[in-house]
């Protein structure tokens, strides 16, 4: 913890070496969290950039009440959800434009193939990612952080400001919901 205090103090002074270390230590964590939520390789990298810029801009607001990683996870989740909302509203506008006969380029949502999934699981994982997208936000976040990012219930609880019990509940409900979605999918 004292290491973290010292490291954050360096970040607050704008020390370039500290920022080098910050990027080295957290780039994969941030990228994978964002990727698990937005399911888009290129956009995930852009969002990861925004996360680090946000960290840089608001490092003085970090009070040290939580772990630095927890704080960065929160920023990564917020940025990813913001991106999703923007994309959703853009899609709605495009839909209305289509209805009004205005010609626009439509962006097709293709299946997402996570680069970290083993080859023989690629198709199954793509189906699962599609199903995860249909979950309510909290269930989806808890499930992604545990299944994709490999965090434990306590860590996810700290990130989402919830108790371990409620995270367990969210993951259980997410699994039940996913079974229903997948059942519909495979029954077709």
């Amino acid at each position, binding site marked *: 913890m004292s290491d973290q205090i010292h490291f954050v103090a360096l970040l607050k002074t*704008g020390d*370039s070496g500290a*920022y*080098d270390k910050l*990027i*080295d230590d957290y*780039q*994969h964590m941030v*990228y*994978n969290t964002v*990727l698990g939520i937005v399911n888009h*390789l290129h956009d995930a*990298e852009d969002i*990861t*950039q925004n996360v*680090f*810029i946000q960290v*840089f*801009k608001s490092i003085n607001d970090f009070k040290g009440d939580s772990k630095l990683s927890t704080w960065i996870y929160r920023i990564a989740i917020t940025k990813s959800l913001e991106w999703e909302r923007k994309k959703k509203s853009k899609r709605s506008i495009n839909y209305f434009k289509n209805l009004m006969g205005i010609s626009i380029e439509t962006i097709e949502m293709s299946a997402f193939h*996570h*680069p*970290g*999934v*083993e080859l023989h*699981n690629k198709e*199954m*994982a793509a*189906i*699962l990612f599609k*199903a995860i997208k249909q979950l309510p936000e909290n269930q989806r976040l808890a499930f992604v952080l545990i*299944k*994709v990012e*490999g965090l434990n219930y306590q860590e996810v609880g700290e990130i989402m400001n919830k108790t371990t019990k409620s995270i367990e509940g969210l993951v259980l409900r997410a*699994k039940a919901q*996913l*079974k229903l979605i*997948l*059942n519909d999918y*495979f*029954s077709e």
Partner: protein
Amino acid sequence: MKTNIEQQIESTLNSLDAIQRAEISPYFKTRMKGMLTEIQPDPAIFSFRYTIAFATIALILTANTFLLYQRFNQNTSAEKSVQSIGEISEIYHLNSTPVLDYDNQ
């Protein structure tokens, strides 16, 4: 049939079990560092900018005060000279009845 679907659901749910971390582009760090140096405010330059700004404001205010003071002084001396002209004309009766007073003719 049902067991087959259940099996498919199970294997789909387990498809992320051995997931590895995705690798970010190797150029990400270089790009990120470039971005951060662009938005990073250099503390020395930052305070120097403030000093310059405050000095400029102080200079403008001083110049304004000086000009206002000078103008005020000019007005006072002009009033004084107007007053002294009035006094002289009174002494020498220069502002007595006009030469052509048509109303009283």
